[in-house]
């Protein structure tokens, strides 16, 4: 009789722990998805803003065909570790100034219209430089895109939590 009661108690405990575990994992999954989405959107906005700033600061350089200032502006990107390479194209689509970290020195032959896209583990952004009347040039930026690394990190935490939970359940339900 006492054994049967203990068995029912364990089963109830198992159900409670499993339910809690599933709830926690669902909550973690939702948080991870939210965080990854936030990372994706905020990183694209961040790189686009950076491209816009570099573009506006280089407008006079393009207007008066002086690549030195544009080059200096791009050089400041060395303080942004996430940016791998960047370039400014003039209004005719010719490379005007470039910046690249070691091993990242390749640039598209021609600039594209405004936009952002993910290529593998990099984020590619094009941003046109305009004044009130005309297109002066285009900024190209290639940045790290660490979505998969973040996901792997979360999966690691997820695994640890799950393993701990399984261990707790196993301890509770094992016959003493």
């Amino acid at each position, binding site marked *: 009789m006492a054994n049967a009661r203990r068995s029912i108690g364990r089963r109830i405990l198992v159900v409670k722990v499993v339910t809690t575990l599933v709830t926690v994992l669902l909550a973690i999954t939702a948080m991870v998805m939210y965080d990854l989405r936030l990372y994706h959107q905020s990183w694209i906005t961040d790189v686009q803003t950076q491209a816009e700033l570099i573009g506006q600061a280089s407008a*006079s350089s393009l207007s008066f*065909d002086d690549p030195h200032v544009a080059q200096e502006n791009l050089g400041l990107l060395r303080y942004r570790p996430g940016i791998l390479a960047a370039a400014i194209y003039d209004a005719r689509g010719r490379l005007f100034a470039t910046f690249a970290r070691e091993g990242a020195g390749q640039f598209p032959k021609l600039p594209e219209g405004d936009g952002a896209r993910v290529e593998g583990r990099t984020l590619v952004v094009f941003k046109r430089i305009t004044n009130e009347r005309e297109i002066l040039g285009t900024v190209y930026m290639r940045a790290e895109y660490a979505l998969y690394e973040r996901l792997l990190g979360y999966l690691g935490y997820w695994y640890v939590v799950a393993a701990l939970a399984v261990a707790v359940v196993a301890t509770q339900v094992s016959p003493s």
Partner: protein
Amino acid sequence: MVALIRFLLLALVSVHAATAQDRRAAEVQIKAAFLYKFGDFVQWPPAAFARPDSPFVIGVLGAEDVAAALDGLVADRTLQGRPIAVRRLRRGDGPAGLHVLFIGQAESARMAETLALARGHPLLIVTESENALAAGSMINFVPEENRVRFDVALAAAEREQLKISARLLSVARRVITL
């Protein structure tokens, strides 16, 4: 044989002349574009414009090729929200109504007279002559390695209440502050 040599020499001279002409044509286009773009980086006092919709007027003295290039460049364009007009000037014309005055090389010998007429007016004076800044010009075009660059005399512009943007100064070859 003599005829052949004469022909070759003539051909050589023609090619050289054509190259020089092409170079001048490119230079004229660049200078005209710069004259128009300076307007984006200079702030005139409100009194320089009679009405809110008054045109932005670029006067050209002694450089018909630059004036012609400007005509083609500014058609249907605006500057700081204003239509742009190009006015060809003759020696002795006053600066009333102008916002930019370009004095071509052909008028460099009489630059002092023109600058004296312009004094006291909020007028951006642009030149293409040696020592023009010392004479009172504000921006002077200078050739450098097949490119057109420019020097800026900041104090001369400030005397006429013109504010030149730091972004323009950053691409100037030289900025004179005194």
